[in-house]
């Protein structure tokens, strides 16, 4: 049975809020970076804030909250963390290689050339 958030002890509430704020704060900073950084290859780095400790912090907060408030271990959130971590590089490489291909074909910017065509 899940109790309401008011019944949570203060230290637990503080801990949950701490991780939740770290996670969502990093995700927000990542989003700001996504808006502010000048080039495509720099913008690629910003969302990884959200997919590393952004997700990590929110998952930790969720594990703590639901474990404490329903007094049984709730750890299935870890799966979210694992799958986000493992799938991010796939999208990132896809986007980055598409950008590299376009920049090389159009010869704009100082993108490193491929040493040899495969």
């Amino acid at each position, binding site marked *: 049975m899940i109790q309401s958030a008011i019944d949570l002890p203060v230290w637990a509430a503080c801990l949950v809020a701490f991780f939740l704020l770290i996670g969502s704060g*990093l995700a927000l*900073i*990542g989003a*700001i*970076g996504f808006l*502010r*950084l000048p*080039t495509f*290859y*720099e913008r*690629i*780095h*910003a969302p*990884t*804030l959200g*997919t*590393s*400790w952004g997700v*990590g912090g929110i998952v930790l907060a969720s594990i703590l909250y639901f474990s404490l408030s329903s007094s049984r271990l709730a*750890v*299935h959130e*870890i*799966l979210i963390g694992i799958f986000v*971590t*493992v799938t*991010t*590089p796939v999208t*990132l*490489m896809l986007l*980055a*290689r598409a950008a*590299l291909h376009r920049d090389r074909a159009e010869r704009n910017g100082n*993108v*490193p050339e*491929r*040493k*040899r065509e*495969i």
Partner: protein
Amino acid sequence: MLPYPLLTLSLVLMWLLLNGFSFGHLLLGSFVAIFASWGMAALRPEKPRLRKWYLLPKLFWLVFVDVIRSNLAVALVILRGRPRGHTAGFLTMPLELQDRTALAILAVILTSVPGSAWLEYDASERHVLLHVLDLIDEETWVDMVKNRYEKLLMEIFE
């Protein structure tokens, strides 16, 4: 019977985490996991060999610490701008690592550590193209990746 015991075990574990533990779900999950691992066997992927599995926690710890550190660094770069003399740039790095699983793990690590992105791996030339957000000098970076991660991954997998 079980071509990929580790995969089967993690699938059962995942099933139980998602559905809650009960004897019925244990049976159903094992059933699904065994069939899934047969399906995997039909694809015949290269089987990863863990040589020194006890080094894995060390690797996880290194990554954990680095992720926290570079999260802070990238957040600062975004909020304050880059310090003078630092630029973002591409980096080509030769790799000695050849095992596919180890390369995949290295790619996941370098991507999930904010501030560096794995762009392109050339299997015949055996080098990788990285993009680094806050590049001070290339040598330090290559050194860091090679000594911190590549050496450890080679010990674990090769």
